[in-house]
């Protein structure tokens, strides 16, 4: 009996946490389709921020355009809703002007890797302390299901109606190669793990990327016969392998699977700190 009550109160507390962070007077529900993975990522992010104890005023959320990029509109933080693909560039300006702020970029696969691909690799290279949450649903959701740079080869989208002939990006590999100092991948099925990955990313000093494999059942799922939101989430469960487990698997056993967990971490000096060093050194000379 006691356990039941305890569980109930924990659950209540959890949902309260999320509600505490909604923008007052913002009309709900969200514009997202019922079952869209964006909501799961939003609550994981809120819990991570809450756990880290950041005050609302020290967090700035920046996004471009896409279903995903609407997230900051619902949340009670300072927010900048910017042009398609450029959120990281705007965020760089915020971070550089106010280095004490926790700057979080919410972005989609199209926003981050197509039109914004250049900003993405340069933010990684600079290793500026921004956390990018990339919700990868393998398609442009907002504009109605066109192929994105993460649409897998062979997949159907409205601009690849006979199967995508291009090869898709692996955003995590791209980030690591470009110089990001923290890279992790999660899915909308594995919510506690996702919350942890986001917490780590926020806590990391340097550019951090969390790629979240998510479901756009409305377009990607429907066009590729992946069923509803639940069956897409189950597929994420089946096809993902943790970094720890992957060590024990052969390349054949890893075929068709993807890794989740922390994929890269290093302690290269963060950009604003590195910049400050130069300032200090030269101011010292005077």
């Amino acid at each position: 009996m006691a356990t039941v009550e305890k569980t109930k109160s924990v659950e209540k507390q959890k949902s309260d946490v999320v509600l505490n962070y909604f923008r007052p007077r913002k009309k709900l529900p969200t514009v997202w389709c019922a079952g869209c993975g964006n909501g799961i990522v939003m609550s994981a992010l809120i819990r991570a921020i809450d756990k880290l104890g950041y005050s609302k005023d020290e967090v700035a959320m920046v996004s471009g355009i896409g279903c995903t990029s609407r997230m900051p509109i619902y949340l009670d933080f300072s927010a900048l809703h910017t042009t398609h693909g450029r959120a990281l560039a705007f965020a760089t300006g915020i971070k550089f002007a106010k280095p004490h702020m926790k700057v979080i970029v919410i972005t989609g696969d199209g926003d981050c890797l197509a039109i914004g691909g250049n900003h993405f690799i340069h933010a990684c290279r600079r290793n500026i302390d921004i956390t990018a949450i990339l919700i990868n649903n393998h398609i442009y959701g907002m504009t109605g299901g066109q192929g994105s740079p993460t649409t897998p080869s062979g997949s159907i989208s409205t601009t690849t109606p006979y199967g995508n002939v291009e090869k898709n990006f692996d955003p995590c590999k791209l980030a690591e190669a470009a110089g990001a100092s923290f890279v992790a991948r999660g899915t909308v099925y594995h919510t506690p793990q996702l919350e942890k990955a986001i917490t780590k990313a926020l806590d990391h000093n340097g550019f951090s990327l969390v790629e979240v494999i998510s479901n756009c059942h409305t377009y990607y799922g429907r066009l590729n016969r992946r069923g509803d939101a639940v069956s897409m989430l189950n597929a994420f469960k089946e096809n993902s392998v943790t970094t720890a487990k992957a060590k024990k698997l052969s390349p054949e056993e890893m075929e068709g699977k993807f890794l989740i967990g922390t994929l890269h971490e290093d302690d290269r000096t963060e950009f604003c700190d590195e910049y400050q060093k130069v300032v200090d050194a030269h101011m010292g000379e005077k």
Partner: protein
Amino acid sequence: MNRVMSGNEAVSQAVKLSRVQVISAYPITPQTSISEKLSEICGSGEMDAKFVKVESEHSAMATLIGASSTGVRTFTATSSQGLALMQELLFWVSGARLPVVMVNVNRAMAAPWTIWCDQTDSVSQRDTGWLQFYCWSNQEILDSVICAFRIAEELLIPCMVCHDGFFISHTHEVLDIPEQNQVDAFLPPRKAEYKLDTANPRTFSGGTMPSMFMEFRYKVQAAFERAQGVIDQTYEQFEQAFGRGYHAVEAYYTDGAEILLIASGSAASTVYHTVRQMRESGRKVGLLRMRQLRPLPVEGVLKHLTDGAALAVIDRNLSPGTGGVFTQELRAALHRNGVDYRVHEFVGGLGGRDITAADIEKICDDLENKTADPAGINWVGLNR
């Protein structure tokens, strides 16, 4: 053959009938259904063209610059933010004398974000060296895109065909679709005199010294100066071939008009219906529908201007600090022609707000009662 289709489908039909060879586009509301349809018919083989799916509008136009330089016929479509992102290359296409044709589905420019219609996106590109056409029906879109290829290829000046987001892009009408052989006869394959060709190697658009640059610009200007002649001739031949004609300025109910309203795009159709009704109740009101911004068809306006009529432009765009772009352009053109005529300026319909029949009647009342500001902006439907 008659078919019911949306404004955006009319574009895809025209592009197919024009036998475009390379298409590149990036999705953006309300243009998206054009690129979707074109990628589908290129993929299925219904159209013998390559569709290049790119990572941004800038890349789309860059792809077309490459393709068009090899002498093939090229097309793209976009809206608002996408058009703005292309701007660097809009200058390039025109300066490089590439006859690219583009459809812009008019949508207001952010910030704040909006997906709804106004014409600020395209009118603000007027200095980039593109011809600009504005359509009010789906049939006109189809016909104008076909004509645009002929005009662009004749003048070596790129062409932008514009229609209003949602009001036209997403509404359906009955269209007369011409037969492929009719279009083939009207629009033969592109013959590029200058192109990338290994048999006759050339280099394009290289660094230019002050001793030469102005002559490049002069030649673009010269092409614009003969553009109206080419446009008129093309539409005349189009009429002979297809039985439908268009003029740079279309005049409706202008006989003895005491009030003349100038409008473009979907707003012009609301003006048309209002004016028709007002004529029935005996008011002497007329419409001049502007089909072009570049070149600005001032002769067309002068032809229909009855002396003494109150002249007003309804602009669905805003250039902050001056006002409506069609108004400013018309005032300058009248002055250049030595005509001293008052042009009243009405700005409305920004960001998708309706320009209603009631708005138009009020404009007419204000002109008739002389309560309209003769010099400044008269705002239509503004909540203050």
